[in-house]
């Protein structure tokens, strides 16, 4: 809260007021944003992990798992930035409409591709371990404990640079979903001579 004492000079007051107004304006634009810090980044991943734990142990069919995963991805991931980054340099010259359509197709492609793998994790538990401030983003580390094999590490990268707190990468044993999809989408795009519209259409058949 902003408290002014008689000692506060006019200059300081102006700076404080400007900051305060800017803060109000940002809040009005993007909703009730809390500054991203260790606590809020961890909280976001806690929620994601809670929902994933529920889904993988719900006993639901594969189709339902995929649907549920798409919901989680849409809610907690920065799908716009992930899909744009997956397109690579070609995203710069694409129209907003092209990008939007692609982003939508990409979301369900990701859900099908990774949601299918969820059935391997039935009976597993994900436990959030630690959060590190990496400067421009936060990294939240978790362990996946599976009934059959050795536990492995999953890291979520969280940022609020979209205006909302969302994760933009999942790194499993060092392997980044974002990097991997950039390679994959890049190759698919090359095979279509950089035609985003055609890739968007074909993406619904791919998983």
């Amino acid at each position, binding site marked *: 809260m902003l408290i002014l004492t008689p000692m506060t000079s006019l200059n300081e007051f102006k700076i404080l007021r400007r900051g305060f107004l800017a803060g109000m304006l940002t809040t009005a634009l993007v909703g009730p944003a809390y500054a991203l810090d260790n606590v809020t980044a961890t909280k976001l991943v806690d929620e994601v992990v809670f929902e994933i734990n529920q889904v993988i142990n719900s006993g639901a069919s594969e189709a339902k798992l995929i649907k549920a995963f798409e919901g989680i991805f849409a809610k907690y991931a920065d799908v716009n*930035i992930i899909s744009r980054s997956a397109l690579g340099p070609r995203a710069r010259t694409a129209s907003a409409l092209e990008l939007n359509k692609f982003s939508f197709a990409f979301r369900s492609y990701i859900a099908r591709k990774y949601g299918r793998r969820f059935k391997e994790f039935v009976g597993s538990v994900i436990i959030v371990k630690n959060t590190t401030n990496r400067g421009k983003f936060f990294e939240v580390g978790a362990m996946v404990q599976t009934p059959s094999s050795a536990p492995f590490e999953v890291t979520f990268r969280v940022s609020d640079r979209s205006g909302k707190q969302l994760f933009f990468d999942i790194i499993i*044993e060092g*392997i980044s979903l*974002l*990097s*991997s999809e950039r390679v*994959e989408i890049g190759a698919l795009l090359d095979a279509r001579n950089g035609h985003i519209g055609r890739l968007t259409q074909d993406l619904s058949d791919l998983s």
Partner: protein
Amino acid sequence: MFRFEKYTIIFSFTGLLVLLSACSPQSGALVDDPFERMNRGTHEFNKGLDRDILSPISKGYGNFVPDSVEDIVSNFSSNLSLPGKVVNNVLQLDMPAAVTNTTRFVINSTLGLAGLFDPSDSIGLVGLDADFGQTLQRWGAEEGVYIEIPFFGPSNVRDGIGLIVGMVLLDPASYVLKAPVATYRAGSNVGAILQNRHTYGDQIDEVLYESADSYAQARLVYLQNRRFKLKDSTRDAYIDPYDEFE
């Protein structure tokens, strides 16, 4: 005579890798692959081996051999790799790991009936991986350029040298073991490879046969996973997608 041939192979292979590393351009990039054309050729060769030989045999092995037998075979192989890991633990001056791996070797070789079983694991004494590529990294060696090695798959100059030197020079078991046991060991190594191929079948198939560019995908998966395992934070080359659009 045999020893002489062994060294000739190491020296010519190491020479080739050193030559490759000398041509290496910049470091720090996510992928440093000036020999992509040659590597892609090797990749097709390796992929053919997997498709025609490794994958089908591993399916047969995984489906028809009981899991308990597979585990015994892999345990035997893994136990005999422990002395080599201890050598690398020591070279890295990682004494706690050297003690853990030595204790494992002693327990599993005796109570575990010559390594057929892994009682150490059940008392929480989990194996700690170590190889000569890792040792070279601990000593300060850079990763070098990416190479795909025939039969062995994705690697880089440092870990490729590590693989060959570790296998041929720094493996105490290979010096000690005599005729029948050495053969059993070779057989158990094959068994362990087959079991691994079967266990991680879906993930491997996804990279090799379901991705649009299996060469690039295998390269990425190898490099990121290897850096993760070696805790090589200097090569943390993940994408910051916001930077690209700011």
